[in-house]
């Protein structure tokens, strides 16, 4: 039986009827039409589907949309404001922290969480923080550089 949920998605409130088994990632992509968060492995390993729910980074393939009822959901589309990239987005661009770009939305969303909790992380802390996000192109070095650059910009 469908249930009504109300979610504030990137600052905009919306109400939808969903099946309880609908995963949050499918709600975001198929119901709300925001395709920035990606479906990679769909088994809570790759992190490409990472979004923030009430400020907490989650793998949205491993959460039901009904669990987000009444909450604020932030996706990669909600980061830029007035056409200006978020500091973390800019850092990924400047440091070439991506090649194909598939993992990038998840990488950026988890970076946001890492820096919110630890504004000046060491390289080891950055790598520990990125453990739940897989990239098959870059070898991670430029991603780590991007997180460092973003930290320097936001911590300054």
């Amino acid at each position, binding site marked *: 039986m469908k249930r009504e949920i109300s979610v504030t998605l990137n600052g905009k409130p919306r109400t939808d009827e969903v099946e309880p088994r609908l995963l949050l990632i499918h709600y975001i992509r198929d119901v709300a039409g925001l395709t920035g968060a990606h479906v990679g492995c*769909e088994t809570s390993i790759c*992190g490409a589907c990472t979004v923030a729910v009430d400020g907490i980074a989650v793998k949205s393939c*491993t959460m039901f949309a*009904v*669990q987000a009822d009444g909450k604020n959901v932030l996706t990669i589309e909600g980061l830029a404001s007035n056409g200006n990239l978020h500091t973390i987005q800019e850092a990924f661009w400047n440091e070439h922290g991506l090649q194909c770009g598939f993992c990038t939305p998840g990488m950026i969303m988890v970076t946001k*969480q890492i820096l919110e909790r630890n504004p000046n992380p060491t390289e080891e802390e950055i790598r520990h923080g990125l*453990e*739940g996000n897989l990239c098959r192109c870059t070898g991670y070095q430029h991603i780590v550089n991007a997180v460092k650059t973003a930290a320097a910009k936001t911590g300054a």
Partner: protein
Amino acid sequence: MIAHIFEYSAPTDLKEALGQLASGGKPLAGGMSLIPIMKLRLAAPEHVVDLGRIVALNYIREEAGTLHAGAMTTHYQIESSPLVRSRCPLLAEAASHIGDVQVRNMGTIGGSAAHADPAADYPASLMALEVQFRLASSSGERTVSVEDFFVDTFATALQPGEIITEVIIPVEDPSAGVSYQKMVQPASGYAIVGVAARITKSGGKVTKARVGVTGLGPKAFRAKAAEKLLEGTEGTAADIAKAAAAVSEGVESNTDLHASANYRTQMARVYAGRALSVAVSRAT
């Protein structure tokens, strides 16, 4: 990967939740295990009772020599809690090794224990710490020791309709040295083997050793033979090696595509040696 169809409720009150569980509901905690197995259709509960909105199950507090963690306390809350870090550093260390940032944000101590995955991180520490679980159902409450709680692979002392409400953890002796060392399966983050060690020393001798092991056998266990071998010694490298070699005594090792039984047994000894060395060096 879509779960089978189910009814969903999200009570905010524990009593209400226990009533729904009594009539056959399946409890959903952080969902880090249940949701994947529902997606794989290894589980197809008809009614899922989401405990995520019961605020009264999420707390960490200290009372008379024990820490009390509500079952819905997340791994991130445990790893980042100043109280846990200072009063029970082993639990905080173990929590910081679980999965990844996103998993630690959602996964809960009660959910992890209740799922009783033989490769989960927490059970090694919960065994070494000799914790107790507070359980509740619609017909009442009871307290169960960790040794009685873990029964077998994915099997616990929980009865149908019963959930963990609280984990009761003894406050660590401030002079004790602790360590959790884990051989990680890099994709899943699960422990191929994980060893939690607690060491207390007095007058240059090891007076108390506690060793909890996960990943090796069908369930987490205390390596009591290893503990006994170390107690009373000075905790030298040779003493530790002797104790670590006994870590798998009496246990039938798991085998899977990541590690054969022989390899796993050997790794359990290696990681037991590492955990004991660090714990001994940290004990004052």
